[in-house]
């Protein structure tokens, strides 16, 4: 081999504590090194040009660059050597900046260490082989999981971009949490009025196939070619016939059915349509309360249905869809706030969640938009809002901030004043977090224009008294004195957590999730939309708490990623993947058991079972390589011999 070594000064970043010229001199003594130099800035245009020139002049077939971290400039120098006609994998880097010059002052030790790191790189390189990427077709369809505002945005943007979209929503209607909101901050405009049109667009868009009341059962395949199994849960109503006229819901005798859409603030019928603007506007029977399904006698809805859409014997259906990319937008749920026994733990009817309060405020809610408290239907005069219930609270395992509670609490305080002019609102808060456009101004309006009283402190206890009022005990940490407020209604700003079933979905998607169930992005700052599974993107709160504008933005961002991915007709697979030496493979199956991506399958070759790597699925972790006892499966670019060469370079006594 003919290796060229380039020891970068990085100005004084490296040269300051490493004798680069000496390192280059030592490098010249290494095997196969035929050229070594120590340029000022290797990554700069002249530096790269020098590398290309040296490759031509000295007929190099491998290059070692000793400079900053490969995580920084490996792609740069791979392109450099490629321009000069070398395979991009015939480059190795020695990190002598982050790992040497920046962490030690001792010139002698640093120089010696740098020289050794260069030696490692040379020894590794001597075992490198050119690797070629393979290309494969892309199925230009996208699956969006979750029909909340983030999912809707992603679906619409993709669809507008000409990409067929499969939208899967767990509930009977899309719209997610936003559809339950009365108004939105900081503009106090009607949630339904701004979300509604988008929902209708989804229903009407020729590029969007919507599966409501459905869930993702299984996902296999890889970027460009996923196969998705979708479970269409039984609605007992043939939606192809249902017109959403609502005749059934009027006549249904099971009127005591808890109303999930209204956050259980009211009741509905066993057969129901979630809300007037529901998309799809179709009826669904709740089998736990339908008399026909429970006792086998009733059948009223079937009688009244003008189109004969009721099908009591309907069963779940599994549908298979082929897509090339997936956007996860599964949103959130409220944490179980009943753990707060000091707040009644859900036993006091007049201590409710903020989302329930939204329904009380909403014209389409159970009270028709008139704020009545659940216990006796009286209009509350004193309303206490308690923030950070299940946020920033280690004691209940929720150390993070839910982000938008400060804002909607201010909004709800303002709306309360609008609904009940002679009412008085109190807000217990820890800190007010209003970092958005017009946000802080908004909270100030709540205090200054609407006279909401903000008390900085946590509520220690809430208990009912004889005359049906709640006593809220807390402390004003600014005045440093305890406060006690009589409230007709207490609204808890309950913190959010990843929606139920997120971990299970993450495992189907083969992406990772944090200890609260939020999906992990590729890079917390620089890749907030990507995941570590190629072709799978994130939108909305499923990745971390955010408000509506941020969710919509990420929905569009995810769509942009999908469209960018689909802008190519073929994808290139990373050649740094495992390869099986079928002569050595004894088909013991250990690699197949371990592979986190299901990327290894057993095939029969001339009557013998052998392991085979599915190139497009393999992510290149190398777990199989360290699992295979006979070393028959080797991870390209990190083979046993390559790593052993490095170990031997360091340990040779």
């Amino acid at each position, binding site marked *: 081999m003919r290796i060229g070594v380039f020891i970068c000064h990085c100005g004084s970043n490296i040269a300051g504590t490493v004798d680069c010229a000496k390192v280059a001199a030592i490098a010249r003594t290494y095997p196969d090194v035929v050229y070594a130099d120590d340029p000022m800035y290797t990554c700069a245009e002249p530096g790269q040009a020098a590398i290309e020139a040296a490759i031509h002049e000295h007929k190099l077939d491998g290059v070692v660059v000793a400079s900053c971290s490969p995580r920084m400039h490996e792609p740069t120098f791979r392109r450099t050597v490629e321009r000069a006609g070398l395979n991009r994998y015939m480059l190795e880097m020695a990190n002598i900046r982050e790992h040497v010059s920046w962490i030690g002052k001792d010139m002698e030790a640093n120089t010696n260490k740098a020289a050794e790191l260069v030696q490692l790189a040379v020894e590794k390189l001597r075992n490198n082989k050119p690797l070629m990427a393979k290309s494969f077709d892309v199925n230009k369809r996208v699956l969006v999981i979750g029909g909340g505002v983030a999912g809707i945005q992603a679906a619409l943007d993709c669809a507008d971009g000409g990409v067929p979209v499969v939208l899967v929503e767990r509930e009977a209607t899309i719209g997610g949490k936003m559809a339950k909101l009365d108004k939105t901050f900081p503009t106090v405009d009607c949630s339904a009025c701004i979300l509604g049109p988008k929902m209708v667009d989804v229903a009407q868009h020729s590029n969007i196939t919507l599966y409501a009341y459905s869930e993702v059962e299984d996902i296999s395949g890889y970027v460009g070619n996923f196969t998705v199994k979708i479970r269409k849960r039984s609605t007992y109503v043939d939606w192809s016939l249902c017109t959403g006229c609502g005749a059934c819901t009027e006549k249904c005798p099971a009127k005591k059915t808890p109303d999930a859409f209204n956050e259980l603030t009211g009741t509905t019928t066993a057969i129901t349509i979630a809300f007037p603007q529901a998309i799809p506007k179709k009826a669904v029977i709740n089998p736990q309360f339908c008399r026909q399904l429970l006792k086998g006698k009733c059948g009223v809805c079937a009688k009244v249905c003008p189109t004969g859409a009721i099908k009591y014997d309907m069963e779940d259906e599994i549908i298979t869809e082929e897509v090339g990319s997936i956007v996860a937008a599964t949103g959130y749920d409220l944490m179980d706030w009943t753990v707060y026994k000091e707040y009644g733990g859900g036993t006091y009817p007049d201590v409710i969640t903020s989302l329930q309060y939204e329904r009380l405020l909403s014209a389409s809610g159970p009270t028709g938009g008139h704020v009545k408290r659940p216990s006796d239907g009286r209009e509350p005069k004193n309303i206490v809002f308690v923030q950070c219930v299940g946020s920033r609270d280690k004691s209940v395992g929720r150390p993070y901030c839910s982000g938008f509670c400060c804002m909607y609490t201010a909004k709800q305080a303002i709306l309360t004043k609008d609904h009940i002019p002679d009412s008085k609102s109190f807000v217990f808060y820890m800190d007010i977090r209003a970092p958005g456009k017009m946000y802080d101004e908004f909270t100030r309006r709540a205090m200054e224009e609407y006279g909401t009283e903000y008390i900085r402190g946590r509520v220690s206890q809430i208990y009912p008294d004889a005359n049906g009022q709640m006593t809220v005990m807390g402390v004003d940490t600014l005045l440093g004195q305890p406060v006690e407020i009589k409230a007709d209604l207490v609204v808890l700003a309950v913190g959010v957590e990843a929606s139920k079933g997120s971990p299970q979905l993450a495992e189907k998607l083969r992406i990772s999730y944090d200890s609260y169930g939020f999906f992990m992005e590729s890079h917390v700052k620089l890749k907030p939309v990507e995941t570590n599974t190629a072709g799978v993107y994130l939108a909305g709160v499923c990745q971390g708490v955010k408000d509506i504008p941020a969710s919509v933005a990420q929905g569009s961002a995810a769509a942009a990623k999908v469209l960018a991915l689909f802008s190519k007709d073929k994808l290139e697979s990373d050649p740094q993947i495992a390869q099986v*030496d079928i*002569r*050595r493979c*004894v088909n*013991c199956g*250990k690699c197949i*058991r*371990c592979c986190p991506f299901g990327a290894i399958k057993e095939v029969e070759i001339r009557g013998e079972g052998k392991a085979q790597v599915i190139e497009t699925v393999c992510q290149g972790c190398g777990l199989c390589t360290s*699992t295979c*006892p*006979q*070393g*028959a499966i*080797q991870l390209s670019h990190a*083979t*046993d*011999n390559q790593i*052993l060469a490095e170990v031997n370079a360091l340990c040779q006594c």
Partner: protein
Amino acid sequence: MTIFALPCEGTLDMARVNQDLGRYTKIDGVTYDEAGVTITADGKDHRFCMTDYAQGKCYGCTTPSAVLADTLLGQPVKVDGAAGTPPELALLDSMSLDERLAFWRGQMDRCLRCYACRNACPMCVCRDYCVSDSRDPHWMTQEDSAKEKLFFQTIHAMHLAGRCTGCGECQRACPVGIPIMALRQQIARAVAQLFDGYQPGLNPDEVPPLLGYEVVEKNIHERDWK
């Protein structure tokens, strides 16, 4: 596959039997009694009582009857108590780290790399493709240093981690009597301690511990770096 089994009452440690038989030209015969055998060699009788001359593994054996069999004849054997530390491991336990190094140095010196240990091992599935003599991957050289020989024993032990059932064939097969079982026994002890007393070879449906994982490991704890 069909498995036939009889309850086992123990097998002889032929290494020690031969030690005590000494030099003889031929075995005239063997007579059995309840507790042992009498080997007649060159007309001389030598009595070997099972309790004194069984293989090391037999003393701590908790599965005298097959754990899985299609035809299992005879009565199951009663076993009291759990196995203690096997003899080879107990020997190593009694030494300091430096002594252990010196011990392996002394033992490995006489290894001829005949690989009887490997080929007698029922769990060595690589067979003709062992990394011990491949160039790609190139884990080992052909040098006859104690280091290379001990490294091979480590390869074997690690490849058997969580799989070795302690049948002891590796050590029995070793023509120069190197107590290599100790290495497998140490791993077996670690595996049992880490994975709730897991013992290989008791349940065909179990996943070998090193081919699986728990998100939260009960017995593995992150160290602090204070």
